[in-house]
């Protein structure tokens, strides 16, 4: 058998090819387009599987690299290539599995949509870009694909562009990401200037020997801007909840499992840079931790099923970033993987509910769906249990690893914060479940179970949510950490008491949700009234959007008004004033002309005299 690595470059290329074919010729036949897109991502999945098998049958630290020059000029060389190591092989698997399942699911969810062909074209383009990002071997390439996934995200959020809210959300996502990406690009250029290369391998060799913190800290901070935008960390988190305007499978794939995790992946990739600046690592941990608790608290009171999941995603991304910041890179990547499975499961389950209820998204208009949609209900519950961190589901192992890292790393505050977030997570997820699937209310609806093409992916993702956690558990001697390793990564032996405590925390969150929303022993209406101030604050997402709107109105519009004034009065004034001056001067000088040839001849003669006298003076002074 030939070396499968030599075919690795085809993994991102196949979906791109499908995108080009659909976009150019096949878009008139939606079914063929969908089939082609599925075939492309399916083949990419098989290739990724083979690549992953090959890399995981070798030794940790082994990698395959291939690259060609793409852009070459003095001082900057950007390659396009493929880097296959355990980290990227893992991401390849996660991305292709979720993308494949989401595309299958979309066959049911998007059935009959007039834009089905372009939907699949965008899906293919996204898959290609994301895979290209994953296999990048240098910062230049990752930036190109980083922008491409942002573009695909924009296209898919605004897929139903007839809706004004979808258009606005797409623009918001794109513009907010630009802010982060600008910092990221500056960081990359900074790297190129300081180290003269963008290649991960060469940088990894040079950065540890470089001790000028005054240069390294700005680089790390600027590079971190990219993940802040793409992984929606505070304060650039505002785009992700609005991105839920896109079709639900898109939310599952892009805004839960893959693209938003790209930021975390980037931190893992560039871990050697971040790790050389402890100050920035602390900042990363704090930003991640703050985002985790900030978003979890907002999720407690939201009423839109997708928004609850979106804030949950924000919170979990914060968890991963926090893990990176405390040096527990392995734990962060592990949580990224498990989260990709259970969060896409939750989104697809939510999509199944929304589809069955004809685009109803308010959880208070749902209820007792468990009888009508048993399959969706139970897979959703599995996903929620995994997210809440109930053993032995996947979320338990990965969340536990992060908490363990925080605890043994001496970050007591972050450990407590993480535990609080875990409690909130369990509570809001089971609030959602009890209100939507159980409860005592019986609203009028004619829900029915979704078709097998939608429930099939749910089943596969549910099983992955159950088993994927064992990869990083002590049952398999932490197979995960054995592969995804780095000399700087903090790693700790499992701690039984932390496991028990985190399970108890999750269980108590579920119990509280059960008491409030299922048994209704405590009325949530009265709670809402008693804590009206906090409730309003959370419901309005801490008024961050309003603050941004005010800032933009006040600062941007204010500066714009001032600059308009400067332009009109000072710049235009200077130009127009000059013209007016010239005009006035001309008007005045007109009166010196009397039209007499003899007057002109006199002037000419006078001029001649002046010239002659000047010339003679010059000659005589030169002689003298």
């Amino acid at each position, binding site marked *: 058998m030939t070396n499968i690595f030599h075919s690795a470059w085809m993994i991102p290329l196949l979906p791109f090819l499908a995108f080009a074919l659909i976009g150019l010729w096949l878009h008139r036949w939606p079914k063929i387009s969908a089939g082609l897109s599925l075939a492309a991502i399916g083949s990419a999945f098989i290739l990724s599987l083979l690549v992953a098998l090959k890399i995981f049958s070798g030794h940790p630290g082994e990698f395959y690299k291939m690259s060609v020059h793409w852009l070459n000029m003095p001082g900057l060389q950007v390659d396009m290539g493929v880097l296959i190591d355990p980290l990227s092989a893992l991401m390849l698997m996660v991305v292709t599995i979720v993308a494949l399942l989401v595309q299958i699911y979309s066959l049911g969810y998007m059935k009959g949509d007039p834009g089905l062909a372009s939907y699949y074209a965008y899906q293919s383009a996204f898959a290609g870009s994301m895979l290209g990002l994953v296999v990048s071997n240098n910062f230049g390439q990752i930036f190109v694909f980083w922008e491409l996934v942002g573009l695909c995200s924009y296209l898919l959020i605004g897929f139903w562009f007839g809706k004004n809210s979808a258009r606005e959300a797409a623009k918001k996502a794109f513009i907010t990401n630009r802010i982060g990406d600008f910092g990221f690009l500056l960081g990359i250029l900074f790297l190129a200037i300081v180290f003269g290369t963008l290649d991960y391998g060469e940088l990894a060799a040079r950065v540890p020997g470089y001790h000028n913190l005054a240069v390294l800290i700005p680089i790390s901070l600027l590079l971190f801007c990219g993940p802040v935008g793409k992984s929606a960390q505070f304060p650039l988190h505002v785009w992700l909840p609005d991105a839920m305007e896109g079709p639900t499978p898109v939310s599952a794939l892009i805004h839960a499992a893959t693209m938003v995790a790209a930021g975390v992946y980037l931190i893992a990739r560039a871990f050697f840079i971040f790790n050389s600046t402890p100050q920035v690592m602390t900042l990363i941990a704090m930003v991640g931790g703050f985002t985790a608790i900030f978003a979890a608290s907002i999720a407690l009171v939201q009423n839109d099923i997708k928004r609850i999941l979106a804030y949950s995603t924000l919170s979990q991304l914060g968890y991963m970033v926090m893990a990176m910041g405390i040096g527990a890179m392995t734990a962060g990547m592990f949580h990224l993987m498990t989260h990709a499975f259970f969060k896409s499961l939750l989104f697809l389950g939510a999509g199944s509910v929304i589809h069955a209820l004809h685009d109803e998204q308010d959880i208070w208009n749902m209820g007792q769906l468990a009888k009508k949609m048993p399959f969706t209900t139970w897979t959703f519950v599995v996903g929620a249990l995994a997210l809440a961190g109930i053993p032995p589901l996947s979320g338990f192992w990965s969340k536990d690893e992060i908490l363990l890292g925080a605890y043994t790393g001496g970050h007591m505050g972050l450990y407590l914060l993480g535990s609080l977030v875990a409690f909130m997570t369990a509570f809001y997820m089971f609030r959602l479940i009890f209100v939507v699937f159980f409860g005592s209310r019986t609203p009028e609806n004619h829900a029915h179970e979704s078709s097998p093409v939608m429930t099939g992916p749910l089943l596969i993702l549910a099983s992955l949510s159950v088993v994927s956690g064992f990869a990083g558990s002590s049952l398999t001697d932490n197979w995960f950490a054995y592969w995804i390793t780095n000399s700087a990564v903090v790693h700790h032996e499992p701690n039984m008491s932390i496991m028990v405590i985190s399970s108890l925390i999750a269980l108590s969150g579920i119990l509280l949700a059960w008491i409030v929303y299922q048994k209704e022993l405590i009325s949530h209406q009265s709670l809402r009234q008693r804590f009206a101030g906090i409730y309003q604050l959370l419901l309005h997402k801490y008024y961050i959007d309003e603050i941004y709107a005010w800032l933009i109105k006040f600062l941007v519009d204010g500066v714009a008004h001032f600059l308009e004034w400067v332009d009109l009065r000072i710049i235009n004034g200077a130009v127009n004033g000059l013209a007016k001056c010239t005009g006035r001067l001309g008007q005045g000088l*007109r009166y010196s*002309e009397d*039209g*007499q*040839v*003899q007057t002109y001849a006199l002037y000419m*003669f006078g001029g001649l005299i002046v010239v002659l006298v000047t010339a003679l003076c010059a000659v005589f002074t030169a002689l003298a």
Partner: protein
Amino acid sequence: MVGLSHYLILASLLFGIGLYGVLSKRSAVAVLMSIELMLNAVNINFIAINRFLQPAQTTGQLFAIFVIVVAAAEVAVGLALILSIYRLRKSVDLNDFNLMKW
């Protein structure tokens, strides 16, 4: 003894009289005549300088003949212009010819 400077003084006087005529005469014909005076002042200069500074050569004399020829052509054109404008304005007074006035 008559030297170069005498000729030059004569030429300057002639040129000055011509210039004065060009600038002050009201009649277009008089202005043309004044221009002739100025040209002839230049001719005297040419001849005198040729005679006193480079007697072996004839460049100055040739130039003088040149100027006389050009002056004849100039007078022809000038008189034609004056005739033409006379037919238009019934006048040869330069004060009446202020077409270029603001």
